[in-house]
């Protein structure tokens, strides 16, 4: 989705994007980007959100409202920042009705002194039995000054659901870096190869 095209409240009809959505609202101001997504019954939709320095210093929120049964939404998100840029990303999955699935994999790559805050909220309302909700946030810190604050949250009010969430924060594997360098690959290129490998998991569509 080319979010730069939307600079005011705008409701996009399914015919434009996909038949899996009743609507998508995109709202962008100088410092915020908000997406509100309503999938229809029996739909399956996948979104990729690729953030970069372009979205730096903004608050981004993505809200998915499951109002119709048996809808599935997959979200793959990436935020990669340099210098002193920062970003805040908040996702909210509202499971209002039964039998819906939300699966999210968010990956962050923080270079230099960049900072990111990630909040992943999943709310399973009382009627939303047989909800299946997954959230994973994996972060790679590439310098001592880089920072990530990650907060997955589950609010579950139904009792027959499957929900999981997890967050990891790590740095490049020293052993892997040494291995590549010992084979003649120059340090910066070796680091770039490992960062690329970290990011590319997003594009291997498989189980989250």
């Amino acid at each position, binding site marked *: 989705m080319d979010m730069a095209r939307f600079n005011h409240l705008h409701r996009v009809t399914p015919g434009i994007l996909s038949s899996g959505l009743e609507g998508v609202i995109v709202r962008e101001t100088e410092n915020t980007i908000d997406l509100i997504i309503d999938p229809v019954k029996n739909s399956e939709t996948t979104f990729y959100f690729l953030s970069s320095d372009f979205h730096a210093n903004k608050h981004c929120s993505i809200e998915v409202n499951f109002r119709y049964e048996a809808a599935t939404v997959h979200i793959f998100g990436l935020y990669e920042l340099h210098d002193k840029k920062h970003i805040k990303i908040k996702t909210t999955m509202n499971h209002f009705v039964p039998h819906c699935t939300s699966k999210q994999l968010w990956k962050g790559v923080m270079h230099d002194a960049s900072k990111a805050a990630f909040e992943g909220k999943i709310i399973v309302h009382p009627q939303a039995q047989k909800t299946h909700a997954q959230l994973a946030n994996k972060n790679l810190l590439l310098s001592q000054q880089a920072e990530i604050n990650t907060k997955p949250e589950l609010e579950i009010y139904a009792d027959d659901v499957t929900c999981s969430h997890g967050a990891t924060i790590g740095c490049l594997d020293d052993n*892997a870096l040494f291995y590549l*360098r010992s*084979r*003649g*690959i120059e340090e910066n290129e*070796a680091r770039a190869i490992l960062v690329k490998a970290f990011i*590319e*998991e997003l594009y291997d569509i498989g189980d989250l």
Partner: protein
Amino acid sequence: MLQIKNLHATVHDTQILKGINLSIHAGEVHAIMGPNGSGKTTLSNVLAGRDGYVVTQGDILFFGKNIIALTPEERAVMGFFLGMQYPVEIPGVNNSYFLKTALNSIRKARGESELDAFDFMQLVKTHLAAVGMDEKFLKRSVNAGFSGGEKKRNEILQMMLLQPKMAVLDETDSGLDVDALQMVAKGVNTLRDASRGILLITHYQRLLTYVEPDFVHVLLGGKIVKSGDKQLAQEIEKNGYGAL
């Protein structure tokens, strides 16, 4: 070709190598045997230039040049290779891409032309048979999900591709069954060459049955305490390290 002079080294501020002297000439196969904790892996990591290993005294001369200040990649370009005891798994990095990038990095640094994907595949395939590896290992991530034997074969494959002048193999035989051991030994033997030095670092004698060393040294407490020929290896096997 490789001269280690009075080498002292620490890891995490602990003195592990306490004065190692060793000379390896082109065409020679040396073996260093030692019990756990004697400094075998420290020695191989110091030679490869790994971060965290600090040379406190002594010199390492490779082709007459002191390499202590050189990075691991610079040493590889000079022709140094370290076969690891526990080759690391690198998910997400394609094995073929890694091998090609390594080879081309070295070729480029030496002013040689880089191989394109087609030429590289042709080259790799000629070596795959020699190490008993199937082409499918090229499509997987580096060492990811490889068995112990497959990881060691991947090390030998890298040696065949990169054609190092000095190869240090750190406990290449550990964790291998007899078949894998023989296959690895065969690979090492094909790399024996008048222009190449090989250093086998090992705990057990069994690899040395298949790859016969010209010289055997015993490492104890961070120092080489005895040197001899392949008979020394058999003595150790019979009497243990305590007998020395």
